[in-house]
C-alpha cells in the first residue's frame, strides 16, 4: 500500500468504511430481531469499493447500483438515520418505508437507487449518462453491478450502446465471485477476468483489487479524469469477497469455511488501519476516537429508526403517479 493522500483523507476513508461495516452489522442484528424484514444483502467485505469510488467523484455525478446498496448509498452521502429507518419500514425512511433494503434512493445526493432486478440498473445508467451528454455536461454516471449481472442481456445491450454512443458511464463491476450461490467459475466464461469482455465493446477495462481502498480510489480518480476529457465509457472490475451470505437467508452451504483464507483475502478496513499505524499516520488514540464517533452515529441511526412512526395506511396510495 502507498498513497499520496493526506492524513485527513486517509482517516476519512477509514471512518467511512467502518461506518458502513458497523451499519451492516447493526442491520444484521435488527434482522435477527425481526425489525428488518424481507431480503437483506450485506456489503461487509466490499466497503473499499464504494468508499474509494465515491471519493473520486463530484457530488453531482450520478451513482446507480444493485440491491446490495447500503454501502453505495452511505458512501454517496445518504444519512444513516434515513437509510436505517427505510430498512425498518418507517415513515421517516428515504422512501417512507415503501422501498426497503434493496431500493434506497437519495435524489439530493444523486444516488439513483438501489435496483433489485439483476442488471436492470444498467440500461438506466446509460440513460443518465445520455442525459449528461445531451446537455453537454461533463458529469459522469457510475454504474455498480455484480458478477451475476454480466450474464444478463441488459449488460451486453448497455455496454454496446454506451460504446456506440460514447456515453460517460463508468461500469464498476464488483466481482465477489458469487452470483447468489453460484461461483463465477461455474457461471461465466472467463469468470475471473470479466473485464476482458469490455474489449469486445471497445471499452477500456482494467481489473483491480477491490479490497484496497487506496488502489480503488487512485484507479477511479484516474479513470474519471480521462472520462471527463473524452466523454466515453470505462470498465473497472474490482475483485472482492463477500464475507456474509448472499442475503441473511443464506447459510452459505456452497463454499468452504476457509475459502477467504485460501484466497489470501485481506480485510479492507484492517489493511488501511495497519497501513496508517505502520507509517504513523494516525495513532491508537485517533483511531479510538473515530471508532467511538462511528459507534455513536450507528447507535443514533438505530435509535432514530426504532423511534420513528410506521407509515399511515394512506401512504400505500401515494406516489403511484406524478
Amino acid at each position: 500500500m502507498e498513497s499520496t493522500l493526506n492524513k485527513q483523507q486517509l482517516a476519512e476513508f477509514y471512518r467511512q468504511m467502518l461506518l458502513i461495516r458497523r451499519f451492516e452489522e447493526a442491520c444484521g442484528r435488527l434482522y435477527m430481531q425481526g425489525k428488518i424484514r424481507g431480503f437483506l444483502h450485506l456489503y461487509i467485505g466490499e466497503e473499499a469499493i464504494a468508499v474509494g469510488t465515491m471519493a473520486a467523484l463530484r457530488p453531482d455525478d450520478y451513482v446507480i447500483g444493485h440491491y446490495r446498496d447500503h454501502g453505495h448509498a452511505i458512501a454517496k452521502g445518504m444519512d444513516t438515520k434515513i437509510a436505517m429507518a427505510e430498512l425498518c419500514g418507517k415513515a421517516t425512511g428515504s422512501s417512507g418505508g415503501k422501498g426497503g433494503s434493496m431500493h434506497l434512493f437519495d435524489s439530493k445526493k444523486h444516488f439513483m437507487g438501489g435496483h433489485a432486478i439483476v442488471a436492470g440498473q444498467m440500461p438506466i445508467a446509460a440513460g443518465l449518462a445520455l442525459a449528461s451528454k445531451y446537455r453537454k455536461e461533463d458529469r459522469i454516471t457510475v454504474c455498480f453491478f455484480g458478477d451475476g449481472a454480466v450474464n444478463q442481456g441488459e449488460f451486453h445491450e448497455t455496454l454496446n450502446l454506451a460504446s456506440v454512443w460514447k456515453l460517460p458511464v463508468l461500469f464498476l463491476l464488483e466481482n465477489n465471485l458469487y452470483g447468489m450461490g453460484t461461483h463465477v467459475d461455474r457461471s461465466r466464461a472467463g469468470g475471473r477476468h470479466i473485464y476482458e469482455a469490455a474489449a469486445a465493446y471497445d471499452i477500456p477495462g482494467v481489473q483491480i483489487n477491490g479490497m484496497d481502498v487506496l488502489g480503488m480510489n487512485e484507479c477511479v480518480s484516474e479513470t474519471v479524469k480521462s472520462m471527463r476529457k473524452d466523454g466515453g465509457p470505462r470498465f473497472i472490475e474490482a475483485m472482492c469477497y463477500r464475507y456474509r451470505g448472499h442475503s441473511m437467508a443464506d447459510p452459505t452451504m456452497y463454499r468452504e469455511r476457509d475459502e477467504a483464507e485460501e484466497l489470501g483475502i485481506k480485510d479492507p478496513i484492517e489493511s488501511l488501519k495497519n497501513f496508517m499505524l505502520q507509517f504513523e499516520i494516525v495513532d491508537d488514540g485517533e483511531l479510538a476516537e473515530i471508532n467511538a464517533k462511528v459507534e455513536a452515529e450507528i447507535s443514533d441511526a438505530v435509535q432514530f429508526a426504532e423511534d420513528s412512526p410506521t407509515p399511515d395506511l394512506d401512504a400505500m396510495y401515494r406516489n403511484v403517479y406524478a
Partner: protein
Amino acid sequence: MAEMILREAVAKGLREALEDDRVFIMGEDIGAYGGAYAVTRGFLDEFGPERVMDTPISESVIVGAGVGSALAGLKPIVELMTINFSLVAIDQIVNHAAKLRYMSDGQFTVPLVIRTVTGGGGQLAATHSQSFENWYASVPGLKVVVPATPYDALGLFRTAMKDGNPILFAEHSLLYGMRGDVPDDWYEIPFGKADIKRSGDDVTIVAYSRMTHIALQAAAMLEERGRQAEVIDLRTLRPWDKDTVLQSVRKTNRVVVVEETWRTGGFSGEVASTIQEEAFDDLDGPVARVGGVDVPAPYNGMLEAATIPTAERVLQALNDSYGI
C-alpha cells in the same frame, strides 16, 4: 380544420413535442430509415441526430435509456417498433419505469412516453400480430393509451407529453392510413375520458383502438335492422372511464365489449366484470364479449382474418346474449 391521416397526426404531435429542448426521440430506424411505419420520415433532417436517435436493436436498453434520461430531468419519447418487441423490454417497462416513483416515494419521476405499434391483420404471423395493451393496463404506475382516430391520437399525445408518468402509447398498424378531421386550434384529450363515437338507446358497444371501427360497422348494420347502438371508444385503458360505460349500459340495458386481443385474460373481462358488479340489475342478459380467437395469429390471410373480431361476430354475440 384540416383533414389528415393518423400517421400525420402522430407526427404533428411529435413535432410539437420537439419544440421543448428537453424532448428527444429514439428508437430503431426512426432516423435515416424514416421509421418502420414512416411516422418520423424527415425528422432526422428537421431536428438533427442529437434529437432523433437511431438505436441498435436492443429494446431493453432503448427503454432503459429513456427511463434514465427521464430520471435526469429530460422528457424522452422512445419508439418500440412493435408491441411484440416490447416483451424484450418488459423488465424496463414493468419493473423499472412503472415502479421508480413509488419505490422512491416521489423522489424521482419517470416522464417517459413509449410509442409502439399494436395489432394484427397484416399477415405477419404469430410473433408480429399481437395486442398486449391489456397486459400493460394491469400495471399500476403505467398509463395506457389506445387511440382510434387522428383527432384522438393528437389530442391524447399532447396529454401524454404533459402527463409526467410512464405511458404506453399504442398505435394500431392498420389505422395509420385512417383519415379524419383535426382542428387547427389547440386541444387536448384527457386520459380516462371515453368518447361516445355514436349515440344510441338500444345497445352499447364498448371498444378501443381499431375495434372502435368494427364497432361502428356493427352499429351501422344494427341501424339497418332498426336498432340504435351507442359506440363507446375507451381511448385509454389505464385509467379507463367506467362511468361513461355504466351510464350507457343503464340506458341501453344491453352491452357487448369488443377487443382485438385474445378473449382469455382480455381487457373486456375487466369491463364486463365491472358492469356486472355495478349495473347488474340494469342488464337484460349477460355482458357479451368479442375478442380474438384463442390461437396464435396464423400467417394465411383467410385464417388470420377468422381470428380477428368482425362486425358480424359482434352482432352474433349480441344475438347470443340478448336475442337481438
